[in-house]
C-alpha cells in the first residue's frame, strides 16, 4: 500500500475574495498534498481574478503543495476559449482539463495535464489515448465505482505503460450536471445575462428537497450537485490500495478536518447523512449500509 495523497479540489461555489484568502491560508497550513485552484463552474464568476489565484498558488507552493490550475467545464463562447488559450500558455503551471477544449489546447502546447472529473473517460482505451496526448493523472467521473476503477486500471495497464496517477472524488457535494441555465438565477427570478452573481449569496449552494422533505440536490449556478455529502471516509484503506489521491471538495473550511482520515488511511465512521453509493455500485444517493 502506498501513501494516499490528499487533494483539495477547486472551490465550486462563488466565495468572496476575503473568504478565499482565509480558506487558502488554512489549506496552506494543512497536511493536504495537492491543491486545485481556479473557477471551473461558471465563466461569469469574477470575484477572484487571475492574479489572486496566482498569489494563492505561490503561497501554497511555498508550503510544499503541488498546485494544479482547474479550468472551466462548460465553454460556450469564443471569449471563454480565448481566455483558456491565454491561461494555458503559462508553462510553469500544471492544468486540470475539465473539457476536451483544454485537452486540445494543452496538447498543442505539449503541456502535461490532469483529466478532471467532468471529462468522459469510461475505459482504458480512452485513458490511453489521452495519456499519449499528455495526461498524467485521471480524476474518475463521480458516477463510477470501485469495481469500475479496478477494471479500468487493469485494462489501461494491459494497453499502455505510460505512468498514470488515479484520483478519486472522496468527499463533498458531488458535481452531477452542467446546464445552459443558471438555476440560482432562476430561483431568484433573474435572467442569466443579468444575474448580478447572485450565487455569491449562496456560498454552500441552494438546497433542493422533494415535496416530502428528502434532500435531493444542491443548486450551484449552472451546476447541479448531490443533495448530500459524498464521503468515502469508511473506505480510506481501500482507496489507498487502488488509488493515489483522494479529493476533498470543500464547502466550508471545517471540511479540512477530513484530510487526516484520508491521509492516515484511517477508516473513520461516516456521519449518518453522508452517502457513498456510487463507490459501491449503487445509486449515488444511496449509502452501502442502507442499500436504498
Amino acid at each position, binding site marked *: 500500500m502506498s501513501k494516499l495523497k490528499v487533494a483539495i479540489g477547486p472551490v465550486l461555489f462563488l466565495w468572496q475574495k476575503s473568504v478565499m484568502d482565509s480558506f487558502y491560508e488554512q489549506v496552506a497550513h494543512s497536511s493536504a498534498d495537492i491543491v486545485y485552484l481556479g473557477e471551473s463552474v461558471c465563466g461569469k464568476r469574477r470575484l477572484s481574478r487571475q492574479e489572486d489565484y496566482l498569489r494563492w498558488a505561490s503561497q501554497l507552493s511555498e508550503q510544499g503543495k503541488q498546485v494544479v490550475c482547474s479550468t472551466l*467545464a*462548460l*465553454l*460556450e*463562447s*469564443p471569449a471563454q*476559449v480565448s481566455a483558456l*488559450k491565454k491561461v494555458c500558455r503559462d508553462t510553469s503551471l500544471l492544468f486540470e482539463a475539465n*473539457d*476536451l*477544449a*483544454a*485537452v*486540445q*489546447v494543452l496538447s498543442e502546447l505539449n503541456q502535461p495535464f490532469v483529466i478532471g472529473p*467532468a471529462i*468522459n473517460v*469510461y*475505459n*482504458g*482505451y*480512452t485513458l490511453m*489515448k*489521452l495519456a499519449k496526448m499528455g495526461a498524467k493523472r485521471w480524476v474518475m*467521473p463521480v*458516477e463510477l465505482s470501485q469495481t469500475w476503477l479496478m*477494471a479500468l486500471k*487493469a485494462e489501461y495497464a494491459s494497453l499502455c505503460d505510460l505512468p498514470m496517477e488515479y484520483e478519486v472524488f472522496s468527499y463533498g457535494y*458531488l458535481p*452531477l*450536471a*452542467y*446546464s*445552459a*441555465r*443558471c*438555476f440560482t*438565477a*432562476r*430561483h431568484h427570478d433573474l*435572467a*442569466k*445575462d443579468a444575474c448580478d452573481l447572485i450565487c455569491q449569496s449562496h456560498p454552500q449552494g*441552494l*438546497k*433542493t*428537497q*422533494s*415535496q416530502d*422533505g428528502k434532500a*435531493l*440536490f444542491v443548486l450551484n449556478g449552472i451546476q*447541479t450537485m448531490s443533495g448530500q455529502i459524498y464521503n468515502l471516509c469508511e473506505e480510506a484503506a481501500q482507496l489507498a490500495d487502488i488509488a493515489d489521491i483522494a479529493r476533498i471538495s470543500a464547502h466550508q473550511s471545517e471540511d479540512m478536518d477530513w484530510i487526516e482520515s484520508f491521509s492516515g488511511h484511517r477508516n473513520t465512521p461516516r456521519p449518518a447523512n453522508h452517502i457513498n*453509493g456510487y463507490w459501491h*455500485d*449503487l*445509486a*449515488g*444517493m444511496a449509502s452501502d449500509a442502507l442499500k*436504498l
Partner: protein
Amino acid sequence: MELLCPAGNLPSLRKAIEHGADAVYIGLNNDTNARHFKGLNFNEAQLREAAAFCHQNNRKLHVAINTFAHPKQFPRWKRAMDQAIDNGVDALIVADIAALDYLATHHPEQEVHLSVQASVTNSSAIDFYQQQFNVKRVVLPRVLSIQQVRQLARKTTVELELFAFGSLCIMAEGRCYLSSYMTGESPNTAGVCSPAKFVRWEQKDKILDARLNGVLIDSFGPDEQAGYPTLCKGRFDVADQRYHALEEPTSLNTLALIPELLNLNIASVKIEGRQRSPAYVAQVTKVWRQAIDSAKRECDQFEVQPHWNTTLAALSEGQQTTLGAYHRKWK
C-alpha cells in the same frame, strides 16, 4: 439542410421516410445506444431491413452507438460498430473516444458523426475530435444560444447538427449524472435516463404521486396533467418555494429558427424521439418537411403556420413548447 428523424422500430422508420425525412437515425437493441429502452430499437435483421428500405428510397440511415464502453467490454461496442458498417449504414453517431479511435484506425472511410453525448460546445473541442478522429459532423448539445451557434458555425469547417424538436434535455448531454445519482443507471453507463423500471405511481385520495426509485418527483392534483417523472422536470422545494426548480415539462420547438438555420448552413436538424410512436414520428416529420420546404422556397417570407404549431404542441410534453437555450432569455 437535412431533416433527420428518429425511429425506435421499423414502422416508425417507414413513417419517417414516407413523410419526408432525408435521413433516419436508429440504435441497436442493447446498451451501446443512449436510448436503451425495453421493446425498442433494432436487432441485426431489422437493421439490415432498415438500411435496405432507406437506400431503396434514396434516404440515409444513421446508427447511434453512443454510450461509453465499459472496461474490458469494448468488444461489444466493436461488434455493434462492425455490424452497422457491414450493413452499409451511412453514418455512425459515436461519443466514446475509444470507439472513435477504433473507427479512425480500422474504418477510416466510414462517415462518423460526433454524438451529442460527447458534449461538444466550443471550437477547440471540435478541433480535438476533427483532428484526432476526422469526424465529419458534430451534434450540438441543447445548451447553446442561437448567437453561440452562429459564432461556432462561422468558425468551424465541421458540419453542425442541431436538435430542432422534441423533449428538452436541459443539461449538457453526456455530462449529467442525475439519473445514476437517483437510480444507479445513467445515459453514459446504461444508455438510459430516469428509467421506467424505477417509476412508481401512487394514487392517494385525489393526489397522484410520481416516484423514481422511491423519490417523490412530482405530485399531481385532480386538475393537473400527470407527466412521466423525468427527474429534472419535477416540482421540488427550494428555500420556501415549490416549483419546477430545474425545468418545466416542455418540449423544444425551433420552427421559428428555420430561416436562420438555413442561413448558417446548418447541415441537419434533428427530431428527438426514438421512444415515440410511429404516429408521432409521422406527424412531426410531416410538419417539419413542410416548414423546411417553405423556408427553402421563400426564406425571407417564411412564417410559422399556426396549424404546424398546433400539431406540434399537441404532441409535446405538457402541451408546451419552448425555444430552449437557443433563446437567451430561457437561461
